């Protein structure tokens, strides 16, 4: 369904995260894992927060996950759903839920990544329900 969405502010990008945002422009969600301890972390860093190892590596996420929690911001000029989505890779990220009825969102719902152009020239990973 179509619904008017809010405009998306620019993310702040730094040396550690520019590859993540470059991939987003190509429609790819990247995650980082650590070659020392093997664990994935979010948000992506040069240094692994699990073990402080400096050998971290990008990899492409499945783009699938489930809604851990959400809230619909009713009082905003254009209401929107903020959420945490737990990816199949085991990490949970803040996001928006789009392309859905805001009153029909549920915890545990299966979602997949899609991307939205930001107010500048970046792209932002957001999630939409997986159509059954």
């Amino acid at each position, binding site marked *: 369904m179509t619904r008017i969405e809010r405009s998306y*502010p620019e993310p702040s990008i730094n040396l550690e995260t520019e590859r993540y945002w470059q991939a987003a422009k190509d429609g790819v969600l990247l995650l980082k894992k650590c070659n020392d301890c093997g*664990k994935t972390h979010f*948000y992506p860093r040069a240094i692994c927060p699990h073990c402080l190892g400096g050998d971290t590596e990008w990899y492409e996420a499945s783009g699938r996950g489930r809604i851990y929690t959400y809230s*619909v*911001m*009713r009082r905003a000029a254009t209401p929107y759903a903020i959420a945490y989505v*737990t990816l199949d890779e085991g990490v949970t990220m803040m996001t*928006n839920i789009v392309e859905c009825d805001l009153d029909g969102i549920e915890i545990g719902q299966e979602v997949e990544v899609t991307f939205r152009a930001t107010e500048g020239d970046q792209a*932002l990973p957001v999630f939409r329900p997986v159509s059954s």
Partner: protein
Amino acid sequence: MSRACQAYIAGVYEHPTRKAVDKTIPQLHAEVALGALRDAGLTKDDVDGYFCAGDAPGLGGLSMAEYMGLDVIYTDTTDTGGSSYVVHVGHAVEAIAAGRCSVALVTLAGRPRAEGVTTLGVRDYGGALPDLGFEKPYGPAITNLYAMAAMRHMHEFGTTSEQLAWIKVAASHHAQHNEHAMLRDVVTVDDVVNSPMIADPLHRLDCCVISDGGGALVIVNPEIAKTVGDRCVKILGRGEAIKHLNAGQVDLTFTGAAKSGPIAFANAGVTPADIDYVSIYDSFTITVLETLEDLGFCEKGRGGTFVADGNLISGVGKLPFNSDGGGLCNNHPGNRGGMTKVIEATRQLRGEAHPAVQVADCTLALAHGTGGNIATRMGSATVILGSNDA
């Protein structure tokens, strides 16, 4: 019994203003400092330690020490948001115990209301933040972040909006007696759940007020406490912790109080069952509910049942809380509510709370601050205070 302690709260002051259009922030800091020093019977020249957080303009405490003409040899500018001042109480105890200072002044002031801050805005703590790019574009206003914690708590434990509403109802019962409180009308569970939805599942009346003002504490060593007299309140225990998103292993059903609470209780040598009164940071109703569980006043997940039916109302329930009306009804100066939590706990232990809400024989009290954000990263701090004869 007489419990040992290393430092006392000798003076407190809460600014009466709720909208400070005609005052600057430094001016408010100085007014609350003077109020707390007068309350202690001390002067600014007695102060040798100064504690403030990010609400104080300038680099650390430098500018405010100069503005107020303080001559200090110890300073602590730990900033964990609204819990900073509860952290400062603990740090002041340690500084005093180590002999680094003898009279510690802690100040807070802010005027977000005069400056037009709303709950809908997205706060920006600066462009160099590593987390910022992964959050700000998604519209994390304060309300919807706490709302996400509430939504998950409801999902896991069956907590209801009506149960959350009881927290506001209790605060309003107390605020009716506070002439300075912004919201003095007693509200019902229906009033809360029928107030406009801000961010599901939090209604307008689940949210704290936005107010100007501030507060100050004067913390002294035992020798000076003797000269001040029996209005001094014992600082018996303190604990603090930072909780964050844990590399993406997110759990929003608990707060940093799960760590700071047990540390403070162990430090004081008491248990939740010993506590007569609690001041719990109440940015939103869900903040109180999760904190009470984490501090051990009830089992995790049972907070909804615990707060229902007036259990937090002084004279009615088993655990009187926020007898000044708290952030939900009284004030939330500078969007930083930790200071007023310590102040009202001190009033209770002195027997100086409003008679309608004063807890009989109040001997042990707990004050807890939550700074930052319950759904991202937070600084939690717990102090356990005792009356002069505790």
